[in-house]
């Protein structure tokens, strides 16, 4: 059986594709408009939510190849407000892992994208809520101010998330810096690698690979799939997480440029 020339095959594909039975296109304009008009009031409502920062864990699915962390599987790593649980690989990352704390675990929604989390605000408002000046990275030199700022918190802790987007591409995150102040936060998920490193000579953790990140209260939860690399370090009472696609050396350079 001889194949038709690729040009004829292309024409056939074009004809088939042109007859695809799409469902009816919904009317989106009004819904988009409503969402845009409600953004400011929504931010105020969300800012009033008393987030209690609770359990977060990090389940390691891949192998801890270089250099191995000191804790064994099933033990805790702790750095500042972040707790990391080294666990057995989880076959299905959408399944909920056992809660590492006695706190009743809230129902988990499907993972959220970082830009979908609640509490969007301005840098000035985030600084006021956080109670101290928020340091910004001076490296890379073209980074500038963050494009999106989120602030969440309650009586037990507070977090601020700063997001820098790729120029002209609002769906592409260049990097995000998370500032956490609280007693009992954690990460949870699947990663391929974690190792110890240093920021300004102090202990830091470096996590590579997909994992779930949870920030939960008694009633609600944020659950995100982190796809980049994460550098975790502390300065005073604040724990920092830097999410990016940067290699370790570059991430440390960003961390050490905070001013």
């Amino acid at each position: 059986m001889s194949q038709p020339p690729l040009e004829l095959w292309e024409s056939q594909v074009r004809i088939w594709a042109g007859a695809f039975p799409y469902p009816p296109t919904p009317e989106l304009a009004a819904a988009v408009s409503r969402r845009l008009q409600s953004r400011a009031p929504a931010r105020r409502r969300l800012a009033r939510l008393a987030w209690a920062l609770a359990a977060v864990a990090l389940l390691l699915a891949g192998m801890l190849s270089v250099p191995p962390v000191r804790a064994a599987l099933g033990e805790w790593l702790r750095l500042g407000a972040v707790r990391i649980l080294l666990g057995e690989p989880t076959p299905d990352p959408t399944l909920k892992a056992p809660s590492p704390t006695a706190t009743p675990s809230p129902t988990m929604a499907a993972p959220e994208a970082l830009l979908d989390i609640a509490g969007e605000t301005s840098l000035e408002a985030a600084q006021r809520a956080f109670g101290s000046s928020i340091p910004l990275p001076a490296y890379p030199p073209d980074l500038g101010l963050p494009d999106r700022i989120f602030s969440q918190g309650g009586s037990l802790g507070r977090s601020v998330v700063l997001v820098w987007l790729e120029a002209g591409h609002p769906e592409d995150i260049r990097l995000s810096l998370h500032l956490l102040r609280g007693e009992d936060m954690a990460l949870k998920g699947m990663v391929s690698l974690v190792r110890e490193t240093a920021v300004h000579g102090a202990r830091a953790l470096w996590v590579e690979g997909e994992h779930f990140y949870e920030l939960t209260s008694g009633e609600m939860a944020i659950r995100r799939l982190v796809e980049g690399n994460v550098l975790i370090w502390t300065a005073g009472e604040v724990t920092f997480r830097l999410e990016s696609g940067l290699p370790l050396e570059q991430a440390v350079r960003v961390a050490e440029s905070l001013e």
Partner: protein
Amino acid sequence: MYKWRKDLSGEEKLNESQWIGDARRGDGAAWEALVRGHQESVFRLAFLFLGDADEAADVAQEAFVRAYLALGRFDASRPLRPWLLRIAANLARNRRRAAGRYSAALQRTARADPEAMHGATQSRLEDGRAANAELLWRALRRLRRADQEVITMRYFLELSEAETAQALKVAAGTVKSRTHRALRRLRAVIEREFPDLARGSEA
């Protein structure tokens, strides 16, 4: 500040650059007009990626919200549609990857049950052309992501090479070579796994 103005007629011919300028100045009615002008392409792209009409509607809506918020950084000398499709494609890709919806949709459609897809399709599936198109779509799902995306843009959404390049953020020459390779791989999948469709192409 986003303001909604009631006096913009939906029947006005799409004057994209003017409406983009108005939308940037906070004119919500201008953005609504742009949404109406592009919602079909954006929704269809999301549907092709996700295989679920409700999910596709959510992604399309989110794409228009994000695009509006980033409109100040959009290069108005370029067409809007590829930029919107790029936003929607990334959102759909993230959604199916994060939640496993994509594999669930694949499993559903792999059951070869037309009713599992969506109700509106059922009557049209009796049309042989629509049935072939759906088989083509299933075969497309077997390809790697980059191949799926370029075939979707070029043949399902009928974008030009230049528009596809902008939507995929690659050079026009890359679109041409990627399309060529993807068509070859698609043909191989159809000949191997969809023999009925392959025979149809020889008729």
